[in-house]
């Protein structure tokens, strides 16, 4: 146990909350119907997606409205490889999908990382729409607005039936834990602290000898990589690549998840993804037609009355959980 705590950095964080939330996630399949389990897997995947944006927005302070570009790239690469090329090996598809997302982020980053504020936001939006227009119009490759169906459940090369929802859920859960741990170590490293420094005062960091551009660029690429991991898993989860996965709505949703969960905290992505997905599910039971209306009203409420997001309230309320570890954006 001692060595495990050392792994979690200098005894500063108690393991309790992590173990608690982890146990809940592990035990979930015992209680949930197949559809709800599918939703739970979706929540974990969106949480990974939101982790990437949380790094870019919450820790580095760049408001991106095009994060779905990397998610969607991976979804489509996953679909091309499995449907068009017939590659069955999950690890190869995952590697290429994440690589494509990372390369896309590295390419986009060159154009935009030196920008800030509203320009950064608008241009990330514009670039992601560029990819959306390809997915939407290049029918021969992407299937256009019909999407690209027929992605099978992954073949891990292990004797585990991934077609079984429970197994697939646990697989997603393991990757989620891995991503969470990666982000945890990353944000607690000198690199992560430098990102927060740049968010708070870029010129001071420059004077201290840091090169803000390089830090922001690397953060943007890593964030894109998280989006890529989520995208590959999502392609396998729903079995179809659809232009919506790369479009404005997906970017807005993940942005809202991050804001809902309080950007710059470790718990943010999971809280945001859980709240939003659950909300959508509950509303869709009662009045699916009015979901955008209710969603919009929640947006307005959050912007007006819960500026820092719901996450910090939850964290303050349940202080003992100690999920407040991180650097919340004030």
């Amino acid at each position: 146990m001692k060595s495990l705590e050392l792994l979690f950095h200098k005894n500063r964080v108690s393991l309790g909350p992590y173990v608690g939330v982890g146990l809940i996630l592990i035990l979930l399949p015992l209680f949930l119907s197949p559809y709800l389990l599918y939703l739970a897997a979706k929540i974990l995947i969106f949480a990974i997606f939101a982790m990437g944006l949380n790094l870019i927005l919450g820790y580095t302070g760049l408001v991106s409205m095009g994060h779905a570009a990397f998610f969607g790239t991976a979804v489509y690469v996953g679909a091309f490889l499995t449907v068009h090329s017939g590659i069955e090996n999950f690890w190869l598809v995952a590697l290429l999908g994440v690589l494509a997302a990372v390369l896309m982020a590295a390419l986009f980053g060159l154009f935009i990382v030196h920008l800030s504020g509203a320009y950064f936001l608008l241009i990330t939006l514009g670039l992601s729409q560029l990819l959306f227009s390809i997915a939407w119009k290049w029918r021969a490759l992407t299937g256009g607005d019909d999407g690209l169906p027929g992605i099978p459940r992954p073949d891990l090369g292990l004797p585990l039936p991934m077609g079984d929802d429970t197994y697939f859920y646990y697989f997603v859960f393991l990757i989620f834990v891995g991503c969470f741990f990666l982000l945890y170590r990353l944000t607690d490293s000198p690199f992560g602290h430098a990102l927060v420094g740049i968010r708070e005062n870029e010129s001071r960091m420059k004077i201290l000898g840091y090169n803000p551009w390089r830090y922001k660029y690397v953060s943007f690429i890593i964030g894109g990589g998280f989006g890529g991991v989520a995208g590959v898993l999502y392609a396998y989860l729903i079995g179809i690549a659809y232009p919506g996965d790369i479009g404005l709505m997906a970017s807005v949703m993940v942005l809202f998840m991050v804001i809902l969960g309080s950007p710059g905290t470790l718990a943010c992505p999971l809280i945001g993804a859980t709240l939003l997905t659950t909300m959508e599910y509950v509303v869709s039971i009662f009045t699916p037609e009015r979901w955008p209306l209710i969603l919009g009203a929640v947006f307005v409420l959050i912007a007006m009355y819960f500026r820092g997001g719901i996450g910090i309230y939850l964290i303050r309320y349940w202080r003992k959980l100690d999920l407040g570890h991180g650097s919340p954006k004030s």
Partner: protein
Amino acid sequence: MDFWVTIIVMGLSFSVLLFMLSSGLSLIFGLMNVLNLTHGGYYLIGSFVGISIYKWTGNFLLAILAGGAVAGIIGVGMERGFLRYLPGQLLDQVILTMGFLFIFTNLAKWIWGPIPQMATPPSLVAGSLRIGAYSVYLYHLVVIFAGLIIAIVLWFFQEKTRYGAIIRAGIDNREMIMAIGINFNQVCAWVFFLGTVIAGITGVIGLPLLGAYLESGSEILLYAIIVVIIGGLGSMQGALAGSFLIGIIHSFSKAFFPALAFFMMYLIVIIILLVRPSGLFGKRS
């Protein structure tokens, strides 16, 4: 030859719509530092209110007035009630204005139903016109002409009147104009009103060209955003140049390679960004 003239005239009339929308977006950002993503929503409100009034009374001018007024009143309500409490907070503004865009779109679906509606131009400016060997739709010409007038009026308002001077001064240094006793809050409310009225009017004027449909709010917003990226946030000249460019490119690429119409525009955006990162007329940061 006819073909080319048609493409150019159609492109220019689309440019006019884009200019009317993006100039408001740009001005509001320049003065108030507010990124108003609901701007497409006011276009949507204008177009649906306009088409209802137009079908009910048959009077297009009345439709323009009603569309502009409703959009403006809702707009100023949003500014007074919500946006003014979020000065300079980009993240909250984005969430708030995006939320309102969702709300307006869904309300429009509730009130007017999901089916797109088309309108014909008013009979006075319907039909086509022959100029020499070319024949063009009269309504397109009227829109272009109206756009020219609006551009001139806006220019005159901003450069030659006292109110325009206040707005320009506010863009440069808001503390200074507050210090000389001008109520900046009121200026903001008026500019927001003006911007949203114009967005609403754009929705009505665009009816015979594009019709009224639910996705129009976010669609036209994306176009306006491209224009603003190209021209530079906060610059009227930028909005004018960007709209001209995008309108023409849009029209040409739609005619020659329709599948790539969007792609072409974003390609232009990237090229311009490489040359001038803050847009053609944007302030260098």
